[in-house]
């Protein structure tokens, strides 16, 4: 029983396989299926943006309106949350959004690898945001940046209590940002795999009437795939939204 479970573990799909083994100074830096998928994602995003905007038509075609839609979506989000100073950070937020969105969506392709289901990848993205926020805050406000950890309007005797709490919650940001994305993607794919397993086992259990029982989870999984595509979009949106909110904290303090 345990062996059968190990064989069809729903976590198998997240296994990293080496394509080109590579070693530098004792560190394993092989080219894996994860790196291949990331390359594909970056290539696809670049192709999508460059080719859809090639014509620069006054009345946008199908692809161009998609590109404009994604541009305006991120630009509007930045403008709403950060204000006019957020324009500078548009390339960062747009890149993050498109990368996360495309790797989430490409992960939905059957047998494809989901890059964002690994905390190693999402934590790197989150650390990028975190370091940028600190760098921007210190470059803009200098020592004044520490005011971020003291909410305005609290009585003086509360500062020594609030200050460590705010520092801890600030340090927890990259963890929560990366964990949310990775776990949401992983949970969705595990769920799909488990329900897909139900199709097989229910079909086999009702083999005497032609495996008709497998139809029920099959319908269910079709709905779930729709839900997962929605979640893929939502998580990319949340990642970009939280990035803008953190940037807003660093730029405008509070």
């Amino acid at each position, binding site marked *: 029983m345990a062996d059968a479970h190990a064989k069809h573990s729903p*976590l198998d799909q997240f296994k990293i396989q080496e394509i080109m083994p590579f070693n530098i100074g004792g560190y394993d830096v092989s080219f894996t299926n994860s790196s291949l998928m990331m390359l594909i994602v970056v290539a696809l995003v670049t192709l999508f943006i460059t080719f859809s905007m090639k014509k620069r038509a006054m009345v946008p075609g199908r692809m161009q309106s998609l590109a404009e839609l994604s541009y305006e979506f991120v630009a509007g989000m930045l403008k709403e949350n950060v204000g006019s100073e957020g324009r500078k950070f548009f390339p960062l937020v747009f890149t993050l959004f498109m990368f996360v969105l495309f790797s989430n969506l490409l992960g939905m392709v059957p047998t494809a690898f989901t890059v964002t289901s690994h905390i190693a990848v999402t934590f790197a993205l989150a650390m990028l945001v975190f370091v940028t926020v600190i760098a921007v805050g210190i470059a803009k406000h200098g020592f004044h940046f520490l005011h971020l950890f003291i909410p305005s309007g609290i009585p003086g005797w509360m500062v020594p209590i609030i200050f460590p709490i705010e520092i801890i919650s600030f340090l927890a940001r990259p963890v929560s940002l990366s*964990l*949310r994305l990775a*776990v949401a993607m992983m*949970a969705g794919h595990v769920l799909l795999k488990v329900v897909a397993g139900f199709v097989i086992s229910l079909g086999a259990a009702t083999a005497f009437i032609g495996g008709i029982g497998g139809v029920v989870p099959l319908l269910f999984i079709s709905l779930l795939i729709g839900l997962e595509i929605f979640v893929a979009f939502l998580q990319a949106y*949340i990642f970009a939204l939280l990035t803008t909110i953190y940037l807003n904290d660093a730029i405008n303090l509070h």
Partner: protein
Amino acid sequence: MELEVIKYIGAGLMSFGMLGAAIGIGLIFGQASAGVARNPSAQKQIFGTAIIGAVFAELMGLFALVGMLIMLFV
């Protein structure tokens, strides 16, 4: 009791953590809908705030889910 059995019971108990996230998200969007019903013109702002709140509530459920998955598969 066998260790294997305890593992599965623990995973089941761990998944109760997701109940809290479910209640939280339900409350957040319920209140957001009530707010929109009272003031439809503020819909955009209300749902923006609600989604941020739901994100934080969801994270707590995801923590429970990670604990459960670790217990089951690692």
